[in-house]
Every structure is written in structure tokens, then in C-alpha cells.
């Protein structure tokens, strides 16, 4: 049984086709990166998997169960968690869960209002929050976006320490960060799966290189 399966998923916003016939399968414990340039449909894919959008066509299976029609909170109860690209922490609440936080070295900040934490710290709190429900499948939407190299390193280190019981899908803009953290990569481009496979395969794929280096029509 796959932890997460996306079958023939398509989604359009009005006339704009954001995702077109996307297929994905992630095994339990696996770590998959979804990479691709801006507008490739990565965040749209996450929004459909978590239930924020209903897809125009296709199915989502979570741990073998068809969840395509379930609302977000029901999917979360089945073991799905996510972080957001735009930090949507509760800006006026304090970092409550000091027990969990102690483990991650933020214990001295547990009474700080999250809106006053640094951006890197907010990202860490966001990851801890996503982990708090012990999810089976965790979707991370650009966890290192907008962070300094030092902050990126500490967030990446945190993700590396996550238990292998949690299946992780990671959206990353930065290919180096992504490839370091995962087992396998799917490349999205203009709403389609352009390539998928091992890190080595993706690294040496000329089409992927062309997208990232912008040499396709040069």
C-alpha cells in the first residue's frame, strides 16, 4: 500500500490549466521532492492533496483510502499534515508546546509570541507544529524559502532528524537543498510531470537542466 497516491490529477483555474494528468506514488517512509520552476503547479498540487481545492479530475489516495471528496480536517485526522509556503503561524499566540519544543532547542522561547520570532525560528515552529499530530504523511511547502544560508542549514538538519515513520513530500525551489534531503525526485513543469526518478537520474537529466538553466529555447 502506498502512503500517498495521486492518479490522473488535473486542475484548472478558469481557463488556466494548472495541473494536467499528474500521477505520483509515494511509499511509506519515502522522501520525495517535487521540484520545478515558479508556476509549475507544485503548491496547487499540495492544496489538492490536503483538500483545500477540489480537483477538476483525478483521485487522491491516502494510505490506500480514497480521500478525493474529504474535507481538509478529515484528511488531517487520517494522518496528513502540511506546512505553508507563506508562514501562517498564529501570529499572536505563544509557542505553547514546551515539551515538544525542548527537544528541538527552542525551550527558552516557548512563551514568546510567535509573531516576534525570527523568520527562521517561525519556520522551525511551523515544522514542529506540523509534526505535533504525529502525521503519517507530511507535506512541506518550501520550508527554506526566504531563509539565510545558516537558517536553511538548521531547518534542513531538522528535517533530516524527522522520523522515518513519516512519509515526506517536499516542495523545493532550491534543487541543492531538495536533493540533499530526499530519496527520489519528481519534476513538475507547466502542470505536467516532466521527469521522475533517483537523485542521480534527475541531476543528469538534460531536460531538467534546461528548465533550471533556461537553455531550452536559447
Amino acid at each position: 500500500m502506498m502512503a500517498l497516491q495521486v492518479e490522473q490529477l488535473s486542475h484548472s483555474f478558469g481557463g488556466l490549466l494548472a495541473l494536467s494528468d499528474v500521477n505520483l506514488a509515494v511509499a511509506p517512509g519515502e522522501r520525495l521532492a517535487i521540484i520545478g520552476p515558479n508556476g509549475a503547479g507544485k503548491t496547487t498540487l499540495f492544496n489538492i492533496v490536503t483538500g483545500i481545492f477540489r480537483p477538476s479530475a483525478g483521485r487522491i489516495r491516502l494510505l490506500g483510502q480514497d480521500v478525493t471528496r474529504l474535507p481538509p480536517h478529515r484528511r488531517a485526522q487520517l494522518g496528513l499534515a502540511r506546512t505553508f509556503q507563506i508562514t501562517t503561524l498564529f501570529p499572536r499566540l505563544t509557542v505553547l508546546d514546551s515539551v515538544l519544543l525542548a527537544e528541538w532547542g527552542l525551550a527558552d522561547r516557548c512563551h514568546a509570541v510567535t509573531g516576534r520570532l525570527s523568520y527562521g525560528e517561525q519556520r522551525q515552529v511551523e515544522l514542529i507544529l506540523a509534526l505535533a499530530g504525529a502525521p503519517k504523511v507530511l507535506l512541506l511547502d518550501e520550508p527554506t524559502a526566504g531563509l539565510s544560508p545558516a537558517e536553511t542549514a538548521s531547518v534542513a538538519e531538522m528535517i533530516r532528524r524527522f522520523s522515518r515513520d513519516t512519509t515526506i513530500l517536499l516542495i523545493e525551489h532550491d534543487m541543492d537543498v531538495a536533493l540533499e534531503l530526499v530519496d527520489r525526485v519528481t519534476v513538475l513543469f507547466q502542470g505536467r510531470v516532466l521527469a521522475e526518478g533517483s537523485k542521480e537520474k534527475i541531476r543528469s537529466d538534460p531536460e531538467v537542466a534546461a528548465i533550471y538553466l533556461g537553455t531550452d529555447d536559447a
Partner: protein
Amino acid sequence: MKTRIAMRCVAALVVLIALPAVLSSYQVGLLTKMLIFGIFAMSLDLLLGYAGLPSLGHAAYFGVAAYTVGLLSLRVANNFWLDFPAGLAVATGVSALFGLFALRARGSYFLMITLALGQVLWGIAFGWRSLTGGDDGLPSVPRPRLPLPWPLTDGGPFYYFVLAFFVISILALSVIVRSPFGRALVGIRESERRMEVLGYDVWRYKYVAFVLAGLFAGVAGNLFVYFNGFVSPSYLNIVFSAAALLMVILGGAGTLVGPALGAAVIVFLENMISAYMERWVLVLGVIYVLVTLFAPSGLVGLVRQRLGSHPA
């Protein structure tokens, strides 16, 4: 910290119990009205301050409870044990119905739907003269008769009768907002989407909050019609709903005590100013502007700033 808060609450209660001894009967009446509107403002605070739902139709539940109690005690029987629960049941029922419509929308759309629904009730009360007396309202609503040693027709005993409901309401609401349910409401206020993906059925939480707010507004409406002996469509309309919002904002949304204080200030000012001029609504508007400019987190916020304590 906890004992200090408890001490302050006991001190406030002692003051409220002792006050009638030093006040004129007119002032006791004013204080009674403050407590009733305090319950009303706190019920709205559950929506605005905790769940982040800006209702501009909260007078609906207050008014519908007041009309229910008024009609029953005038036309059926002045029986507290029938009329009071009936008022609460109707207020709760109407909020349960309105919530189904209003919670389909968010933000300013929620505000407009609650406003429209409230105005529908106002229209009914205004137009259905044979039942509601229309614009003239329902006069001579009697005070409840209870087997107490002091008749509630006297201002003093009635004040303590209202104070009992005020204390029960503030305790019940405090328990609600400190419960996991209340914490979840605050989470929804701060970030609805995140609560959804954390596994909370956001709609259900908001709906329960909406109905509970209707219930407590009903408590206030019931007490008010007994207090005032009269209810008219103006207790259902937008001006009254807006005044309630102002009480919450003036006192400090999301604090419970703040809105009760805000209600006291508004009742006091209305009483003072109405004696000198007709344009009370204009004054409300000016207060609103001043509060948003100089005390955006209300009176409680000002006090906390002075004391240097961090927000809850």
C-alpha cells in the same frame, strides 16, 4: 498570578454586591442595565474576540428573546419557569438557524449577512402590529414572580437577581474560552486554514460558538425585558447591534471583562448624553473613531500597557 486574578474577581464581586447600599434607586437601575448589557457584550465577544466573527446582527438574539418573554408573560402566563427558558430556546433556535446562512461567508460578507438577517427580524417586529405592537412595542411587561422573600418589582432585589445571572454568565463564558474548545476558536481566529489542516472541523467550531453567543445574548434579552418592562423594534435593529460591537471594541475584544466594562461605559455615557442632546448615534461614531485611533485594543489593552504585562 492565578490567585491574584481570583482575588480581583472576588473584590469586584464584593464591590458589586455592596454598591446598592451607597447608590440611589435611580443609580441602582443604571447599574442593573450595565450588567445586562455586559452579558450581551460578552456574548458578542465570544464571536468577535475569540472566534474572530464580526457579527453586525447580534441584537437579533437579544431582541427575539425579549419579545418572546414579553409576549408570553403578557398573553400566556407570567410564569418565570415557562417564559425564561422559552426566551432562551427561541434565541438559541434563531441563532442556530441564522448561523447556517451566516457561516457560509467570511469577513465583511459575514458581517453583511448577519446584518441582513437581523434586519429581517426587525422588519417583522416593526410590521406585524397585531403580534408585536409594531413601532409602539410591547408595553407593561411584568417582572417575574418568584418565591423569594423580596419582590423583584423592587429595584434592589431585581439588581441582585440580574447580578446572579451576570456572575453565572461570566463564569460560564470564562470556562468556555479557557477550554480546548475556546483555544481552538482563537486558533481559528488567527489562522483558519492552518486549523483545518491540523484536523479541526472549523465550521463546526464556529457554528457552536455562534449558537452559544445567541444563547447568552438571549439571557441578556430576557433580563432586559423584565428590567425595562418594555421592548420595541429598536432592540432588534442595526444601531443596537453596532452599539454592542462598540461595547466589545471599546472594552477590548477577546477579554470578556473588557466588553462588560465597555458596556458599562456606553450605558453610562448614553444616560449622561441623552439628557443633553438627541444625537446619541453621532456620539457612538465619535467614540468608535477615538477608540480605533488611540486604544485599538480597548480599555483593557490600555490598562495592560500601563502595567507592562504581555497580552493573553
